[in-house]
C-alpha cells in the first residue's frame, strides 16, 4: 500500500487485469469532487502546487452551480500489494435530466463507489443511479463520506445502505474527502473488490462513447471505453450509428491533463479527437470501430437523446434575435440533446421553440444564454409533447399549446414518468397530497430505514414540469428528494385553455391542462394578468376560454387620469425628462392588439412562482 505508484502503466500496453474502471455515484454536495481531489493527490498525478479545489469541474457553470454536467475520465496509477494498477475514474453527471448520460457512464465501468454524506443519508437521485448501476451488474462499494463532521451518523446510514444493496453495515467504508482519512484504503478496496475489464483483444475494435465535449481549441473531444480490439493514432474510425468516418487525429488518456498515447486497448478509457466540430457527430452511446475492419455489431444501448420538455425562448429586445440564434448554434456544439427551431409568437415576436431533456437542462441552457451571451430572455411556460388524435384519425404532435389542433379531438396522449420520492416518514401524507393533486398514481412505498421512506409514483410529466419540485421541497421543508424517469404515455382528459386580451388571443399564455384544472388555470391566469397589465385608456377585458367557451373573466378598468408631469413652476426640464422616461418605458411594452403589455407582465405571468413574480412586477 504505497501512496504513489512509482511507475505508471503505459496506455495501449496495459493488460486488462491491471485495469479498474469505476465511477462515483453521489448526490450533489455529498462530496464527489472533494473525494476526487484527494485521489488525484494521493495517486500523485496532480502535485501539491497545481492542486486546486474541485479540480475536475472545469466548466464555470459547474463550479458555480455545484453541478457536474459533463463527465470526464481520469487515469490514475495506484500501487496495491506490490502491483501497479491503472484506475480509471469516470465522473457521472448527477441529475435526473441526464439519466441517459449516466447510464452510459455506468456502462463504461465494472464498479461503482456509492458515496453518501454520513450526515445526510442517501437521496432519491442517488438511489435511482444506484439501481441503474445494480441493473448494469456493477460491483458496488458503499462509502460514507464526511465522517469528520460532528453531525455524521455513520452507523445509522451504514444500516440504511446495507439494507439497500444487501451487504453488511460493516462493509461500508468510511472516509473523509476533506481530511483524506480512509481514501487510501478505498483505493485499495477498488482494486481488490472490483473485477477487471474483459474483452477480445483480437476482435475488430469496438469502443463505446460515454461522453462528448466541445472544446473551442480542439473541436469535439470524445470519451470512450474500449470493449474489444484496439484503437490507434491516425487510423480511420467509423461511428456505427451514422456510418460516418473520421481520421483519429489524437488519442490519449486524461491524467488529468490530456496526454496523447499510442492508442487504447481492451478495457481502457481515454479520449479521441477527430476534428469534428459538433457533438452530434460523436454521440453518447454510439460505438466507434475501425472503418477498414469494422465490427459486425454495435454495442447495445444506444439511444438518441429525446427532448421531453419544450419552451419558447424570446429575446426581450426583439433586435437580439440573431444573437440568440448564434448563441444557440454555439451551445448546440456541446449539447447533443439541445434541439430548437424558429418560432413566432404574436405576443412575443421572433424566438425559438427549444426542446430540453428536463427542467434542469432548461434552466442551465437559459442561464448560459443569459450569462455567457448577455441576452435578456423571456421563456414561455414549459410544455411537454402531446399526441393529439383527431376524429378523422389524423395524429398531430403538439410541443407548443398554439399547435393544438382545432376540430374534433378523439384522444390526447401525454408522457408519463416513474417518480421516486425519498423523505422522512413524517412527510408521507404531505407528499401523497401533492402527488394526488398532480394526478399521480401510487405504485408502492418502502421503508429505507425506520425513519425514511421511498414512495414510487406514476405521474404525468406535464405535472412535474410546472413547479412540482419547488412545491415538494417547500412542503417537506427541503427534506424530500425526487427522481424521475420517462415511463411511456397515457391518454388523458386534456384541454387547451386560451387567454384573450380584449378578445385577442395571446398565444404565449395558452396552456394544455387537465379538464379538471382548466377552470383553476383560467381563473389564476386571468387574475394574475389583471394585476400585471397596467390600466389603459380603454377598458381591457381578460378572458380565459376553452375553444369558444369562456371559463373566467376579469377586467382592467380604463385609466381616468395620467396627467402627472409637474403642474407648477418653471422647471420645464424636469417635465420633459419625465416625458422621455415614460417614452422609454413604452418601448419595453409589447402590443397585443391595442393593449400595451409590459415585458415584466409576460415574465411574471409566465414564471411559475406567481407570488414572487407579482411582487417583482409591482415594484417596477
Amino acid at each position, binding site marked *: 500500500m504505497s501512496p504513489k505508484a512509482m511507475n505508471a502503466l503505459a496506455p495501449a500496453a496495459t493488460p486488462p487485469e491491471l485495469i479498474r474502471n469505476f465511477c462515483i455515484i453521489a448526490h450533489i454536495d455529498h462530496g464527489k469532487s472533494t473525494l476526487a481531489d484527494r485521489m488525484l493527490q494521493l495517486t500523485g498525478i496532480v502535485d501539491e502546487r497545481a492542486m486546486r479545489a474541485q479540480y475536475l469541474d472545469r466548466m464555470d457553470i459547474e463550479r458555480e452551480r455545484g453541478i457536474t454536467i459533463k463527465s470526464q475520465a481520469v487515469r490514475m496509477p495506484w500501487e496495491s500489494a506490490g502491483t501497479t494498477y491503472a484506475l480509471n475514474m469516470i465522473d457521472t453527471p448527477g441529475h435526473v435530466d441526464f439519466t441517459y448520460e449516466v447510464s452510459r457512464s455506468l456502462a463504461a465501468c465494472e464498479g461503482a463507489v456509492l458515496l453518501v454524506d454520513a450526515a445526510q443519508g442517501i437521496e432519491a437521485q442517488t438511489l435511482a443511479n444506484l439501481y441503474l448501476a445494480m441493473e448494469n451488474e456493477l460491483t458496488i462499494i458503499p462509502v460514507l463520506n464526511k465522517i469528520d463532521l460532528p453531525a455524521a451518523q455513520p452507523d445509522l446510514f451504514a444500516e440504511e445502505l446495507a439494507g439497500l444493496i444487501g451487504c453488511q453495515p460493516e462493509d461500508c467504508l468510511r472516509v473523509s474527502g476533506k481530511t483524506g482519512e480512509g481514501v487510501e484504503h478505498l483505493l485499495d478496496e477498488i482494486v481488490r473488490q472490483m473485477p477487471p475489464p474483459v474483452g477480445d483483444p483480437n476482435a475488430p475494435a469496438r469502443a463505446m462513447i460515454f461522453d462528448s465535449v466541445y472544446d473551442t481549441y480542439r473541436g469535439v473531444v470524445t470519451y470512450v471505453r474500449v470493449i474489444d480490439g484496439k484503437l490507434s493514432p491516425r487510423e480511420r474510425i467509423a461511428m456505427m450509428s451514422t456510418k460516418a468516418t473520421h481520421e483519429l487525429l489524437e488519442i490519449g488518456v486524461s491524467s488529468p491533463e490530456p496526454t496523447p498515447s499510442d492508442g487504447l486497448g481492451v478495457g481502457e478509457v481515454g479520449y479521441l479527437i477527430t476534428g469534428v466540430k459538433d457533438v452530434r457527430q460523436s454521440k453518447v452511446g454510439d460505438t466507434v470501430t475501425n472503418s477498414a475492419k469494422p465490427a459486425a455489431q454495435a454495442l447495445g444501448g444506444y439511444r438518441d437523446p429525446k427532448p421531453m420538455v419544450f419552451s419558447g425562448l424570446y429575446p426581450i429586445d426583439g433586435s437580439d434575435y440573431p444573437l440568440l440564434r448564434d448563441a444557440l448554434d454555439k451551445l448546440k456544439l456541446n449539447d447533443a440533446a439541445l434541439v430548437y427551431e424558429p418560432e413566432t409568437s404574436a405576443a412575443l415576436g421572433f424566438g425559438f421553440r427549444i426542446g430540453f431533456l428536463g427542467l434542469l437542462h432548461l434552466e442551465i441552457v437559459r442561464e448560459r444564454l443569459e450569462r455567457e451571451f448577455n441576452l435578456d430572455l423571456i421563456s414561455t411556460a414549459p410544455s411537454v409533447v402531446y399526441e393529439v388524435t383527431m376524429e378523422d384519425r389524423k395524429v398531430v404532435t403538439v410541443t407548443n399549446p398554439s399547435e393544438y389542433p382545432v376540430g374534433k379531438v378523439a384522444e390526447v396522449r401525454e408522457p408519463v414518468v416513474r417518480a421516486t420520492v425519498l423523505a422522512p416518514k413524517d412527510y408521507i401524507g404531505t407528499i401523497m397530497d401533492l402527488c394526488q393533486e398532480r394526478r399521480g398514481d401510487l405504485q408502492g412505498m418502502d421503508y429505507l430505514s425506520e425513519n425514511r421512506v421511498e414512495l414510487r409514483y406514476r405521474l404525468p410529466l406535464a405535472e412535474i414540469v410546472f413547479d412540482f419540485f419547488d412545491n415538494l421541497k417547500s412542503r417537506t421543508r427541503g427534506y424530500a428528494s425526487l427522481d424521475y424517469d420517462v415511463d411511456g404515455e397515457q391518454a388523458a382528459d386534456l384541454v387547451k385553455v386560451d387567454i384573450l386580451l380584449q378578445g385577442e388571443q395571446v398565444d404565449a399564455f395558452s396552456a394544455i391542462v387537465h379538464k379538471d384544472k382548466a377552470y383553476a388555470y383560467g381563473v389564476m391566469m386571468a387574475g394574475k394578468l389583471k394585476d400585471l397589465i397596467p390600466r389603459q*385608456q380603454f377598458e381591457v377585458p381578460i378572458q380565459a376560454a376553452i375553444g369558444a367557451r369562456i371559463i373566467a373573466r376579469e377586467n382592467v*378598468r380604463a*385609466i*381616468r*387620469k*395620467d*396627467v*402627472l*408631469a*409637474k*403642474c*407648477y*413652476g*418653471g*422647471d*420645464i*426640464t*424636469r*417635465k*420633459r*425628462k419625465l*416625458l*422621455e422616461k*415614460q*417614452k422609454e418605458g*413604452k418601448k419595453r411594452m409589447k402590443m397585443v392588439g391595442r393593449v400595451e403589455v409590459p415585458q415584466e407582465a409576460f415574465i411574471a405571468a409566465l414564471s411559475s412562482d406567481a407570488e414572487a413574480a407579482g411582487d417583482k412586477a409591482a415594484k417596477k
Partner: protein
Amino acid sequence: MPSTLPDGDPAPADGSLPDSALAGARERSFGVYLHVPFCAVRCGYCDFNTYTATELGGGGSQAAFAATAALEVELAGKVLGAAARPAATVFVGGGTPTLLPPGDLAALLDAVRATFGLEPGAEVTTEANPDSVTPEGLAALAAAGFTRVSFGMQSAVPTVLAVLERTHDPDRVPRAVAWARQAGLDVSLDLIYGAPGESLDDWRRSLDAALACAPDHVSAYALIVEEGTRLAGQVRRGTLPAPDDDDQAAKYELADDVLGAAGYGWYEVSNWARGAQHACLHNLAYWRGGDWWGVGPGAHSHVGGVRWWNVKHPTAYAQRLGAGHSPAHAREVLTEEDRYVEDVLLRSRLAEGVALRRLRPQGLEAVPSLVADGLLAAGAAQGPGGAAVLTRRGRLLADAVVHRLLGA
C-alpha cells in the same frame, strides 16, 4: 421650484448666454421670477426648495436675502445687456415670500424696476401663506407695486389640512382675501385635492369655501407624492394610503363642474380664471415658451432656448453672488427637437391648445384619432386656424395625448 435639480451642462461662471439666446429677444415677452426659499415649517408633501429657520441655523440669511437676490437682478441686467427689456410679469414665489418683511419684497421689486423697468400694467404677484399676512402688510405690498396675491389655501377641511400638515386656521383664508381686496390686489387661491382621507364631500366643501371668497383665479392641483418628502415615507410605510388616480379624476371633474358653474373658465389644466383678463400671465409665459429670469436659490430661467437653474442652497447662492459669480448651477441649450417636444408638452395643457400649424406631420396625423377617442375637441381642430385642444377627458389623460402627438 421643486427641489431636485436636473442634470445639465456646466454653466459659465459669469452667467453669459450664447448669442443665439439673445437674438431677437426684444420681440419676446420677458418676466422675472423671484424665489424666496423660506418657510415657517415644512409641509409633509412639499419638495420645493425651501428651508426653515432652524435648518438655516437661526435664519440669519433670511435677513440678508433681499440684498443678495438684488445682486442677481443686477447680474441679469448685465448678462442680458442690449436684450434687457421691461418686465411684463413679476412673480415672487417660494417657499413663503411673505415671511420676509413687506419692505424686503418692495426692495426686490424696486431692484427689478431699476434694472429692467416694468411694462405699463405689468402683473406683479406674490405667493402668500394665509397665516403670514396682515392687512397692513398686504397694503404695503400693494403700495410697492404688487397687483396680485396667490394664497396657499389648499383645503377648507381641518382634517385634510392636518394630513397636509398645514398650520393655518381655515377661517383665516376669507379674512386674508378680504384684506387683499381692501388693498386692491387681485386674488388667487391654491387648492390641493386627493389627499389621503379626503372625501368627495370634503373636496366639495373646499371648493365652495374657495368660491365663497370670490377669488379672481383658482389653481387646483392633484396631490403628488414627491420622492423624499415625509408624505412619501408615510405612504411607503403604509401609515397613509397613496392617492388614488380614480378619486383624483373624480375630484378634478367636480372642480371643473363647480368652478365652471361659478363662472371660472379653465385656461390651463390646473388653472381657472374669472375671465381671461384674470389668467396668470406669468405662468402663461412658462407654457408659451416665453423668456424669464429666475432669481434666487434653485430658481429656473429660460431665455431664447437656453434653460438654466441656480444652486439650491441659500448659503451657496449667497457665496456665489458675493464672489461676483453667477449662481447658475447648470444649464441646457435646447435642441430643435427639445423645443418641439416642449412646445407640444406645454402648449397642449392650455385652453388655447397647440396650433395645428405648429405640429409636425406625425402629430397632425394623430389628431383625428385623438378626436375620435374623445381626447381632443373636434370643433377646435377644424380649419386652417385649428388647434389641438384637450377635452375634459383629454385634460385628465394629457400625458397620453402628448405621447400620441409626439408619435410615441
